[in-house]
């Protein structure tokens, strides 16, 4: 069943060339402006003909650059602003969380703010009373409930605010970029809570710049660009395409014209790409699947021993590793002129979640010469699932590190005290 139907939704803003008349004084002084040249209004379409259908129970991530229209869409669906044309139909009680702690008042105590914020978010008083203990327990700030929140640290404030929000129980939950707050442990709790909400069959619309959270939580994602839906598909693909458009580096790059291809008169690079284990081009990889880096190059001189190599960088520019081609078949073998295609396989459960960039080079020994070394020729995204069989196990929050291997763990009992009650 469709729970949200959006038809031709558009929102137009006027960008005035001059300053907007924001005071009565300006209006009075500008009363005769129309006699002069007509003020030119520039039209900005924050949203243009958005058509969208969301099924009951879906968790949909919305991504896009700042100013692309994501927040405008959420605000229209939350009824905060009106569309210019088109319509949206919501078949369910809608709760929106565009900001954590809306309506909190600094002079009031934590307890008072729970009721205030709850009501503002659309909970009935009885509902809040019923969930009060849960909210307090979730926030972990029991002992400060009677303190005015102006004395809270920002962390405590966030905890309290999110706890109220997390206990909202609407059929449609609209969430704007709220995971950027709180410490790691609390973020983890929040992500788990969002998963729970979704598992209860609630529909979630979720804007975030945290691509990893999007791929972890959402099956479907929508990329909004310049007010239009650029792509609407499964979350991995959308995030992958979006990121590569941002990076201006795609999963494959080739040089058709030998003249301009990188390299010298010994070897030239023709093509670099990343693909899955079946050899199909891909830009997004499940962490549990291997990644193949493919490079095609032309050897222009006979009788040379040539070593292709590969480097992987993460999005902070840190080199994750360098790998040389040690394949016995070619390691000491002199090559004939011709075109070669080499594959390097990055094993499954090795790279962490995130964006990675490929650099390739080719070297000959005696004398040691590098014939080409191209950085950022291809990029790909690794995503981690929440299915429990990757290195993250059942943990849903952010994990540090640029690699994420599954290690063997063993535990031995050194000394035992007490008795474990086995409930099995």
């Amino acid at each position, binding site marked *: 069943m469709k729970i949200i139907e959006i038809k031709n939704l558009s929102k137009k803003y006027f960008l005035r060339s001059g300053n907007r008349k924001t005071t009565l004084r300006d209006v009075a002084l500008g009363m005769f402006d129309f006699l002069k040249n007509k003020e030119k209004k520039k039209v900005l379409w924050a949203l243009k003909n958005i058509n969208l259908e969301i099924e*009951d129970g879906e968790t949909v991530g919305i991504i896009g650059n700042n100013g692309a229209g994501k927040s405008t869409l959420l605000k229209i669906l939350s009824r905060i602003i009106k*569309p*210019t044309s088109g319509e949206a139909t919501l078949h369910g009680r809608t709760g929106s969380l565009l900001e954590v702690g809306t*309506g909190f008042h600094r*002079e009031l105590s934590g307890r008072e703010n729970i009721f205030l914020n709850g009501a503002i978010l659309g909970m009935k008083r009885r509902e809040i009373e019923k969930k009060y203990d849960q909210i307090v327990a979730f926030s972990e700030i029991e002992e400060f409930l009677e303190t005015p929140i102006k004395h809270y640290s920002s962390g405590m404030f966030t905890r309290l605010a999110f706890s109220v929000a997390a206990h909202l129980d609407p059929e449609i939950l609209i969430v704007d970029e709220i995971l950027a707050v709180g410490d790691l442990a609390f973020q983890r709790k929040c992500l788990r809570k969002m998963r729970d909400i979704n598992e209860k069959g609630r529909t979630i619309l979720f804007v975030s710049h945290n691509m990893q959270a999007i791929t972890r939580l959402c099956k479907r994602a929508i990329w909004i660009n310049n007010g239009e839906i650029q792509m609407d598909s499964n979350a991995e693909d959308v995030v992958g395409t979006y990121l590569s458009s941002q990076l201006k580096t795609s999963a494959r790059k080739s040089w058709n014209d030998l003249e301009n291809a990188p390299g010298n008169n010994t070897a030239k690079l023709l093509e670099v790409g990343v693909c899955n284990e079946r050899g199909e081009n891909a830009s997004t990889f499940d962490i549990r699947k291997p990644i193949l880096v493919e490079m095609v190059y032309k050897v222009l001189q006979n009788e040379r021993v040539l070593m292709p190599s590969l480097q992987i960088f993460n999005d902070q520019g840190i080199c994750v590793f360098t790998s040389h081609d040690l394949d016995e078949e070619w390691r000491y073998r002199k090559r004939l002129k011709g075109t070669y295609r080499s594959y390097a396989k990055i094993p499954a459960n090795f790279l962490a979640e995130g964006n990675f960039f490929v650099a390739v080079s080719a070297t000959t020994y005696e004398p040691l010469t590098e014939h080409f070394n191209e950085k950022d020729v291809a990029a790909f995204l690794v995503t981690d699932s929440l299915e429990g069989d990757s290195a993250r196990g059942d943990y849903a929050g952010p994990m540090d590190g640029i690699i994420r291997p599954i290690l063997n763990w063993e535990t031995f009992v050194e000394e035992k005290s007490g008795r474990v009650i086995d409930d099995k």
Partner: protein
Amino acid sequence: MSETSKSEYTFKIKPEESWLRIDLKELWQYREVFYLLVWRDLKVRYKQTLLGVLWVILQPVIATLILTVIFTKFGGIETGGTPYVLFAFSGFVIWMYVNTSVSQASNSLVYHEQLVTKIYFPRMFVPASSVGSGLPDLFLTLLILFVAMLFYGVLLTWKILLVPLFLFFALLVALSMSLLISSLNVRFRDVKFIIPFLLQVWMFASPIFYPLGWVPERFQPIFAINPITGLLEGFRYVLFGNELNWVVLGISIISTILILVLSIFVFRKMEDDFADLL
């Protein structure tokens, strides 16, 4: 968990709605937000200043005392047999309520920007909550007025039962001006600077501390376009049994209704842009 069936609740978001329509069902649905806005206003106000309550009482009392001293010095005023102190104080009870509500409400939407731009609820609640949170003060000063009346030996008649009617009248006057001014203040940010001045003019143009009799009879109907005029005439009629000019009261009631309709119209028209303007 409330397990309502999903098809039961459907909401359509469309560009425009009728400007004059007030969705009473929706106001009722969101009523708890209104209670909480009022409750929050009160709680914060009385938490911050211990003098809060005292101030509420002192303002009209001091104003009344000063005027009483001045006017008795200059030979007294014809107030239809009512002691001038009571006459002026009754005027200030109503005026202070309207004055405080309107000046609180004028900046309310801007002050609650965070709410207005992040959450949906009927926007009217914001200025309306200023009008609502003024009520306890009104009751308090009214109580003092009754005590003073007993002190001066003014006999209460059955008409006292009509007092709530005039309090409601005062509420409508405060509400209509609050809606109008608060929405204009979002659009024109200098409105808030002229509000104190306008309120002062309004006060002097209302028979608060002087009787309507000071105004030449033929101008009285024009004077009654100011809702406060009829409101105070009626209020004093039920309190002290003053003579009542029904034409004045009628004009003021009609004028109030027209202002209220106009205010709702302006508010509804501007409401959709609040989040974009703030």
